[in-house]
């Protein structure tokens, strides 16, 4: 599974939308039910799923799912 697919699976669970399809452009503004509680849950679950920790500065500026995917890929690559 690609990083995007794994994040999509997390969004489906957290938002309870089993049929949800996301793209790199999806964001809290475009996806139904992505409120502040869901946002924290999404970040926390992504951290668990990929076994990475996000530094504060980098998660504050995320604009959409694409940037989250890139951040995860960078963190996973940095772990080696």
């Amino acid at each position: 599974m690609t990083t995007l697919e794994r994040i999509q699976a997390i969004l489906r669970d957290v938002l309870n939308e089993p049929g949800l399809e996301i793209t790199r452009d999806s964001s809290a503004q475009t996806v139904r039910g992505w409120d502040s509680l869901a946002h924290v849950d999404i970040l926390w679950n992504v951290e668990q799923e990929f076994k990475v920790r996000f530094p504060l500065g980098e998660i504050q500026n995320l604009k959409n799912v694409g940037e989250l995917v890139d951040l995860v890929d960078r963190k996973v690559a940095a772990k080696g």
Partner: protein
Amino acid sequence: MLATTSEILRCLEPPVDITTMLRKRRVLKELLSEQNPQLTCRVAILGGSTTAEVRSALEIFLLRRSIRPEFYESEYGRFSEDVLFENPELDKFEPQIAYIHTTSRNLRAFPSLGAGADEAAAATSEELSRFRAVWEKLHEKFPRCTVIQNNFDLPALRPLGNLEAGSHAGRVMFVNRLNFEFARAAAGNPSLYIQDIQSLSAELGAEKWFDPTYWFGYKLAATPYACAAIGLNLANMIGALYGRTRKCLVLDLDNTLWGGVVGDDGVANLKLGRETAAAESYLAFQQYVKDLKQRGILLAVCSKNEESSALEGLNHPDGVLRPEDFSVIRANWEPKHENIAAIAKALNIGLDSLVFVDDNPVERDIVRRNLPQVLVPEIGSDPAQFTTILERSGCFEVLSISSDDLQRARYYQDNKAREDLEAAFGSYDEFLDSLQMEAEIRPFSPVYLDRITQLTNKTNQFNCTTRRYTQAEIEQIAIEPRYIHLYGRLKDRFGDNGLISVVVGEIEGDTLRILLWLMSCRVLKRGMEEAMMDTLERQARNRGVRLVIGEYFPTAKNAMVAQLYGQLGFGKVSEDSAGNTVWQYRIPAEPTPRNRAIRISE
């Protein structure tokens, strides 16, 4: 393949899988709400930090206990302002429970670097009075409200290193000191309870408890994981407030209370005692179970064994549990779920009061499938872990220890002696006379408020209305003159049954409406309900009441009292399609006593 409801809900069974729960909050809430819990409870969450995570977890874990919460959440960080100042929204909400979600992040008055004993004491009393003001105001505004206050987790940072724990200026010492003062406040205040996040945070470990990213980014004073653990722990406390705790631990024997199979290996070869590490771990589990028994949890055995082998095992010279520690022993070759149902019946308690511990996953599964109300923790097969898993389930959470708890197992043993005697008499009346019963039937008094609350919230069978009250609400009833309130204690020649019945009625004009009528099933068929009615009638009459109204609301468990009011001389007035019935009784000029066999002191 779609997962079934019970598979999805599985993550909420002990040991609770918080990681999965945090991924599936929404579907969990949806499925649990569909089960349509009847008991609602208004919880105000007064936060010193973001509260949404705790609220969501608490909601799920309360729904899991068949309690549907409604929430008020304070503005971010305004736990004290929301209470101390005008707040029509909170007033209108009228919380039954106020939970103050504060942590060491909310401490302001840390002692200064050079602080000595006096300054540290002053800092402690300054913080204490800040919180005390909130508790007192809550009590003043909402006399029936129960307050749950966090104590403090140890500070995440210790700039002075070990000195923080060894000097008056130290933060560790300060937090410990404050926690001690909070504990003292709670010990002297029946409507204030401490949620021990100092222990909870230690149990999770610093790493899982606090993460600066979530603090600075989202003002979460605990990680999402830790917030879920707080929600679970709170749900255990609130469950206990409403009597949703378990009463009886049902135990397997072989490889659960000792290592090996007593029937095959023989008592001499069982692993139990001090000889080996494995033997010690089984002994430690027995000791833990014995401690549970001492604080009032009933014990039962459900084992596939010959009864003689089971008893031999329980008489193992190095064991601490003995056959007489168990209220029921079912050792035979019948399916375990049938034996467990028989245990519930013998003890006169509901299946939802039972916890079953068995090392065998197949047996656990069979019991879970056949008796979903029984709590079956995924206890594993390592005896060294049994106590931890059982304890963290929170299924035996208590908010206070009443003297009744300490004696419970004895009541059931006395009952066996009574049953033997009953068989020896020609008529039931003769048997009742031979018991030489004495009852004390009096208005609520402070020493019994704990027990009255406990009995009110856990009695399911002999209970006409199944209304639940917190201790603060019971206290309120005890002081407001519009209520008539009675408790009953019953003694006989075999022993003291303790406080076993509660009746509450509300007077309006010349009418008394009975809100609560309940009794412990351990004194069924002794005529105690008639004695209670005699006293109620006399007191009502003295206060100018002419008409008494009783109601019966059917539940899955209280069919035994469907005709109670009829038997006491009431006439049925109405019955609706749900089976709710209303009864009335006109107090005559010369009431005729119903009770015959019990000597009453009022």
